[in-house]
């Protein structure tokens, strides 16, 4: 108590070092955390931020070791305590929220049993009281039907739900400090906002300080009071969130903050086609009508429509964005358009040819003109091949070029995508994620296709490399006149790269319009919720300062096809009885955009 009274700090760490078999991951990390504060820890991947956060609890992943430093907690050094003393502090005074919630819960025990154990480890509560408390905690973190979820196993939960359970476990003994290690990586924006809102509220109610490790500027701007920047295992900058965004000091900070302003200043292609309803007939490169794809799900009698009656048109050189939460069917739609998957119905015209009627052999001949870039660049390349072999494969398969011409084409593309020359000789795994994705783009562009589907190309990338990739894609579009279908759940990417945006929910188009229409004045409640949940990197309009944060309820749940009415109605805050009774149709509006919501069309929502 005296140490606290003197320094005022809740926790103070000095000179922490963590080694992994001789390699130093954290090097002299020092930090003070005040009562009730919300501190963000930022830094590039591999800078040791997660390892440092774990070390604050005296934890380290095997085979690492904490080799130096101390963590003062209420005047005592955590790193000198034995396991028993530590167990008394962890989970009761300091809670941890991990990055991978699904693997953090025991696979063979129910969620309830695990919560009860954690609560009872630190209190003298009876089994029944602990179960009551567990129920209350699940409610606090916003889990629907908490009583039923107590008896669920982790494999029966979605990632978002598992993350809430983990937060509930970390908070159930009202810790004075909560360490959260990238708690929302891998979650959809809507779920991310829900989870962080709940975390923020619950921590506030319980008076817990929070240390949040993240590389998302939006999260930092919207939730944190202070920012700590790490580089090469140590703290290189620490200041208030406003100070950080106004005057970042470290070069990494300046780079990422600078990125934000740079990107938002640039506008979409000036010469692009500016027609909200899609291109005129003569410009059309890809036209999709009534596209439909159903999956049979084991355990369900009805097949599930992942893509349900989608119409789409993309003109030459245009970039169309396809957005929606995971499970909205956007990836399936993209794959069906390229016929990497066979649609169940609908027609696909590519440069006037009917792709949907082609036999596999004819289709293969067409592949050189339409390409795809995948979500995980490393996974999309043969691990035994060199980068040059990877880029050359489409040329080998689809063109008649001579060896020299192929080599020239590869060199041209690696220059265009900004690959260093020596990269061609290396294996994909030896490159950084950003370079890997450039290789993937080079491979997609090497046959000079007219059309490229970009399937979540930025989801494996840091904010920095994401911005670079968006710039590269814009460059290549200018140079080769290629058209893109950009599939992403990252609204920043979509906003910065696309001319037009199509919003999907449960396999249906719910809104379609020009990028500035969608982002400036979304009409459909789903689009509104997506945009509202998007955390922009601006500490002056923080989400937590707004009084009304109501977004969508719960998570995306597949609905039965026989359901009458709007598919969003179970989650929509604006739903009325008519919404549940009437099937919604996609209606064109005067400004050219199309919306699937009668209330939005009648202007009820303004």
């Amino acid at each position, binding site marked *: 108590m005296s140490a606290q009274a003197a320094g005022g700090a809740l926790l103070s760490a000095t000179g922490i070092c963590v080694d*992994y*078999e001789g*390699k130093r*991951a954290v090097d002299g990390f020092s930090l003070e955390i005040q009562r009730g504060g919300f501190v963000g820890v930022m830094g590039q*991947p*591999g800078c040791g931020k*997660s*390892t440092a956060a774990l070390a604050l609890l005296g934890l380290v*992943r*095997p*085979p*690492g070791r904490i080799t130096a430093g101390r963590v003062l907690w209420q005047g005592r050094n955590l790193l000198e305590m034995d396991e028993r003393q530590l167990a008394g502090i962890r989970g009761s005074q300091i809670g941890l929220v991990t*990055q*991978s919630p699904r693997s953090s819960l025991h696979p063979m025990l129910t969620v309830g049993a695990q919560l009860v154990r954690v609560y009872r480890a630190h209190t003298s509560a009876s089994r029944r009281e602990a179960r009551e408390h567990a129920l209350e905690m699940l409610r606090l973190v916003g889990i629907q039907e908490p009583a039923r979820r107590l008896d669920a196993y982790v494999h029966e939960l979605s990632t978002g739900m598992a993350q809430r359970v983990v937060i509930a476990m970390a908070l159930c003994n009202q810790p004075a400090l909560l360490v959260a290690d*990238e708690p929302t*990586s*891998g979650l959809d924006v809507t779920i991310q906002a829900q989870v962080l809102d709940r975390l923020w509220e619950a921590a506030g109610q319980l008076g817990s300080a929070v240390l949040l490790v993240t*590389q998302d500027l939006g999260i930092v701007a919207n939730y944190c009071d202070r920012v700590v920047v790490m580089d090469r295992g140590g703290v290189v900058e620490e200041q208030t969130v406003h100070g950080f965004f106004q005057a970042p000091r470290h070069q990494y900070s300046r780079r990422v903050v600078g990125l934000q302003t740079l990107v938002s200043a640039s506008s979409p292609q000036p010469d692009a086609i500016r027609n909200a309803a899609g291109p005129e007939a003569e410009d059309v490169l890809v036209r999709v009508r009534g596209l439909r794809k159903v999956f049979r799900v084991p355990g369900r009698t009805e097949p599930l429509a992942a893509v349900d009656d989608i119409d789409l048109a993309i003109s030459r050189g245009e970039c169309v964005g396809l957005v929606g939460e995971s499970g909205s069917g956007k990836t399936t739609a993209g794959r069906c358009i*390229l016929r*990497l998957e066979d649609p169940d119905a609908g027609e696909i015209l590519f440069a006037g040819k009917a792709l949907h009627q082609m036999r*596999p052999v004819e289709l*293969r*001949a*067409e*592949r*050189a003109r339409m*390409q*795809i870039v*995948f*979500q*995980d660049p*490393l*996974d*999309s*390349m*043969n*691990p*035994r091949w060199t980068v040059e072999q990877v880029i050359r*494969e*489409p040329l080998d*398969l*689809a063109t008649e070029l001579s060896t020299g011409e192929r080599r020239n084409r590869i060199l041209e593309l690696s220059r265009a995508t900004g690959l260093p020359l020596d990269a061609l000789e290396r294996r994909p795994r030896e490159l950084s*994620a950003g370079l890997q994705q450039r290789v*993937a783009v080079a*491979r997609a562009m090497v046959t000079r296709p007219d059309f490229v589907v970009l399937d979540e190309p930025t*989801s*494996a990338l*840091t904010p920095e490399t994401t911005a670079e990739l968006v710039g590269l894609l814009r460059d290549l579009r200018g140079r080769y006149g290629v058209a893109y279908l950009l599939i992403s759940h990252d609204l920043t990417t979509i906003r910065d790269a696309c001319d037009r945006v199509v919003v999907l929910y449960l396999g249906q188009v719910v809104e379609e319009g020009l990028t500035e229409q969608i982002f400036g004045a979304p009409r459909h409640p789903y689009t509104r919720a997506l945009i509202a949940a998007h955390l922009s990197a601006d500490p002056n309009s923080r989400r937590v300062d707004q009084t009304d944060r109501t977004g969508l309820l719960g998570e995306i749940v597949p609905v039965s096809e026989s359901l009458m009415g709007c598919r969003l109605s179970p989650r929509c805050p604006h739903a009325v009885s008519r919404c549940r009774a009437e099937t919604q149709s996609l209606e064109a509006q005067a400004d050219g955009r199309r919306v699937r919501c009668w209330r939005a069309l009648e202007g009820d929502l303004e």
Partner: protein
Amino acid sequence: MAQTQNGSTEQLMRPAPSPGIGARVLLWFGLSVAASVVFLAMFGPLLAPYDPREATGNVGVPPPSLAEWPGLILASVTGQLDAHPHWFGTDFYGLDVFSRVIAAARTDVTIALGGALLSLALGTSLGLIAGFFRNWATALLVRISDVLQSFPVFITAMVLVALAGRATGNIVLALCLVYTPIFLRLTRAEAMTQARRGYVEAARAAGAGPWYIAWRHVLPNSMVPALVQLSVTIGFAIILTAGLSFVGAGVQPPTPEWGLMISQGAGDLNYGWWWTSVFPGLAISITVFGFAVLGHALEARFR
């Protein structure tokens, strides 16, 4: 997503496959044993001091004691001896055990290598097909292979060899049949994983056909588990080959063969003649250990 972002720490955190025993040491030890055994299999009969099938007339001669060995080796190298010493003694029929142990390497290693390589070839091909092209026919294949694998291998091999005739070729075929399911299962599991990987999809998107993908992409990336398993399987195959003749269902006497020698030597223990069974067994033991070490070294290197 999380993996790529934290690739560096993930790699650091992966537990070491071997507890700090140098993979290089293992590799060299395994390779040298395997090479010596293969060398013996090729030239063993030429190096044997006596004809492994011809009785010497000296029955039940014990091997020289360890203290005599250095002198005897020196004498035999310098050519001072009239007759070669019986390094490992002689057996009940007066056959020289040393010559037979050396000559037997050819029998056992040929059969084991043949069986293991044949099952590797068959198992990886079928495994690739079963993992990459998934339909009712390949499902049936896998089912059959599973049932075959769950049944004790020794009994299967014994039935096949005894009833088909105890010839070398039949033993190789029986080994192939009992070990193919192992390679099939390993390759299929890997091929199924690889077939879901993005690079397979990328090749399709680039216009590749299924057989091209199976051959150029999936096969090279699915072979590692089977290749690692090969070395261990050669060891098992040697034990099985010798075991079959040990129970009287393998190669026929008087072929020099380790298991047969142990079987005949087992009865000699009653007279206190330990050398007729101990030396051939030692040969199996060292050979098999060498292949096992090689297998572990490859596993540590490639996984």
